[in-house]
């Protein structure tokens, strides 16, 4: 290790140079977004463009907050995220544990069915989900945003994998102590799965916060819109008023970025254990 480290560190500055250039290019859009948000609309439509705002102003933020119900939309995004995360972790952990450890008729058939659902692109479900939400009279409501995301074949699969890898001795000890299935699950197994639960929670939060298509479908009339839909529709209103658009984009991005910075390890673990997309 030490020999490799010293041999490697001799040329390491060159790698840093490449990485720093790459990272600098990666953050250009963010820097441009921030700089633009503090400019006036006149300034962004001059040529050649200025880099640093000539007269830094928070006018764009004021326009954004004055014309978009940010806090209402933030609330919708946040509440549906919490419903989705808590719901999915519970539902998936219960089912995942049953698949991993309990026996019941049809277990294998059902599990294969779950796996098949994993492979189907989400668009195949949208028409039926929309019909169901409409039938239940839930269009333009918070439950409509959150409910489909609570049930996830992927989450169930992830939790099953977590329970599969746990040693059976703990459960057997709990059972010898007289604990039943549910108590064994709740007090012994669930706490042991907390790192996978954290990964699942973080992934679900990411999907929920960023999702555009489903909210667009179930919140057509404007009530109970999350930030994504609000931000997208703001584009129609502010067309080319880029400072206001950038201010809005920035404000809506910050919450999840803050959570990410705080929970980096869980984010990376979630991504690494599962793959984000799909």
């Amino acid at each position, binding site marked *: 290790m030490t020999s490799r480290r010293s041999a490697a560190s001799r040329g390491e500055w060159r*790698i840093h140079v490449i990485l720093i250039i790459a990272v600098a290019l990666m953050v250009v859009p963010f820097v441009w977004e921030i700089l633009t948000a503090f400019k006036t609309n006149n300034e962004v439509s001059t040529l050649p463009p200025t880099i640093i705002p000539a007269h830094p102003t928070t006018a764009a933020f004021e326009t954004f907050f004055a014309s978009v119900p940010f806090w209402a939309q933030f609330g919708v995004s946040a509440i549906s995220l919490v419903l989705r995360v808590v719901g999915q972790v519970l*539902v998936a952990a219960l089912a995942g544990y049953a698949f991993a450890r309990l026996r019941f008729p049809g277990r294998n058939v059902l599990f294969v069915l779950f796996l098949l659902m994993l492979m*189907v692109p989400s668009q*195949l479900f*949208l*028409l039926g989900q929309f019909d169901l939400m409409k039938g239940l009279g839930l269009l333009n409501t918070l439950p409509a945003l959150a409910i489909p995301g609570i049930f996830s074949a992927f989450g169930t699969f992830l939790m099953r994998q977590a329970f599969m890898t746990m040693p059976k001795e703990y459960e057997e000890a709990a059972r010898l102590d007289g604990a039943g299935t549910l108590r064994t699950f709740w007090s012994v197994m669930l706490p042991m799965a907390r790192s996978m639960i954290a990964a699942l929670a973080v992934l679900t939060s990411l999907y929920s916060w960023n999702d555009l298509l489903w909210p*667009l479908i179930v919140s057509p009339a404007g009530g109970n819109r999350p930030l994504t839909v609000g931000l997208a529709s703001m584009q129609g209103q502010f067309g080319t008023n880029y400072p206001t658009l950038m201010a809005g984009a920035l404000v809506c991005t910050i919450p999840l970025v803050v959570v990410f910075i705080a929970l980096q390890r869980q984010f990376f673990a979630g991504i690494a254990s599962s793959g984000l997309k799909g």
Partner: protein
Amino acid sequence: MTSNVSSPVGRPRRRTGLGARTDWWALAMIAPALIGLAALYLWPFISTFIKSFMNVPVFGPGKFNGVDNYAKLLGDPGFWQALGNTALYTVLVLLGIPLAIVFAALIQQVSRGKAIYRVLFFLPVVTLPVAVGMVWRFILNGDFGLLNYVLSLVGIPGEYWVADARFTIYAFAVVGIWMGLGVNLIILGAGLQSIPTELYEASSLDGANRVQQFFSITLPLLSPSIFFVTILTTISAFQMFDLVFVMLGSVNNTALGDSKTIVYLFYDAAFVQFKQGFAATIAIVLLIIIMAVTALQFRLQKKWVVYD
């Protein structure tokens, strides 16, 4: 909760094997997931399949029309254009994977600053795709965009990247690569960590340099992870919707007409024009295409993925 503790008594200690009993708690635990998946996933899937053979008006019952929707879709130049756009976008976004491999390998090699590099590469992943689309729409703007300004500094004439349908798919791809790099980097980084360092040490002793090591050790041993991100990237690229909607659709950009992807076509048919039957057909065709492409990739992997 305490009443729940009285689970089946006298269950055999050895729970595998034929004598094992049904645990009725299992059914209760699985019921929420099962009911939800049946109502929100399995049934919608089946009903989409059925609707794809129907004409479904906004009001009133639908009527079966055989394979009319399929015939109409396959005879529609707009579908082939969307398929071409989606395929081009997918191929271009896959070019981001070599980038991710190189950066993952470079990050792996540094002794300091790994965490900060990962965080910065990952930022686009935790940024709202809507916000991403808005920022890039501005950067790629033909008149006041940053890109054209930078290009003008080096004497290259700019283009209307997001207003001219000749360039829109390439513009989406640049944004798509930028957005996906962080995820691919993390998955590949996890793969790199599982490569034993002894292999590098041994090959150093044999006189191999870093580049030789990269091609003879890193790439082959990383190939399962590369295959995994290839599959994920392909599937998600085929489902691209957000960028088209944010960068063109929601601002009534005239380039939208020639820049649609398959999922945009689906959204438009289902929830703008309310032609559920036709939309269902698009969804089924998308499923078939994704399955075929994924199957092809699994077939091809035998030629290049190394499993030990």
